[in-house]
């Protein structure tokens, strides 16, 4: 279920980003390029974080960026971006993020299976550590695939 959404082109790695805005732009890129989201959706995520939306910080340096479907979601999609070193979400020192997920949910139910798998994977200490430690697409896919078969 997870690798249905998180394919090779949806797994990105970046170094030395200027800040969280760059991270949101980058993690949105595969979705935007494929037409899964409209530009307005990226702006909505950035505005929401700038307005204090650090609630997307899941803990352990992982953030789940998303906005409401009506802000420009065409198709349900998911992407991920590893950032080294971590950037500060909302420029707040208490929110260093090294792994960004971008969730575009077309409605309130179509994304639930993928999100349930992701939540399960991230709640597992060893799987989460392996995922955070991934350095390339193949390494990340291996963790995501192992997560599906558990």
């Amino acid at each position, binding site marked *: 279920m997870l690798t249905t959404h998180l394919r090779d082109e949806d797994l990105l790695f970046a170094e030395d980003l200027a800040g969280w805005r760059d991270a949101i732009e980058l993690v949105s890129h595969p979705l935007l390029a494929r037409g899964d989201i409209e530009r307005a959706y990226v702006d909505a995520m950035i505005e929401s974080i700038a307005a204090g*939306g650090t609630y*997307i910080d899941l803990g352990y340096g992982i953030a789940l960026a998303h906005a409401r479907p009506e802000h420009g979601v065409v198709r349900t999609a998911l992407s991920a971006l590893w950032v080294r070193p971590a950037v500060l979400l909302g420029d707040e020192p208490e929110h260093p993020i090294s792994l960004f997920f971008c969730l575009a949910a077309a409605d309130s139910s179509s*994304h639930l299976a993928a999100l349930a798998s*992701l939540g399960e994977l991230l*709640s597992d200490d060893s799987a989460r550590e392996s995922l955070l430690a991934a350095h390339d697409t193949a390494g990340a896919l291996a963790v995501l695939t192992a997560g599906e078969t558990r």
Partner: protein
Amino acid sequence: MTKFLAVCSTGLGSSFMVHMNIEKVLGELGIGGVDVDHADLGSVSRGDADAVFVGRDIAEAAQGLGDVVVLDSIIDLGELRGKVAEAARRHGLTD
């Protein structure tokens, strides 16, 4: 039936993850009789649930919703296990 509600700003992302994890933890703890759901902050009123689980960033906004349980991490099962067990005790589900 006792109702636990996971709440986040959009009702789409983290609240669903917390919802799933509360169900998982209740199962592990062998606690039944709890209806778990998730929602966005704007659509929840005081009295909608016996306990409302939120991330720390919306803790202040959720203050008026009754028994509010604040989570430091959305995906820390250890933390959630402890806080769900306490909430279950407060609402008379366990001794």
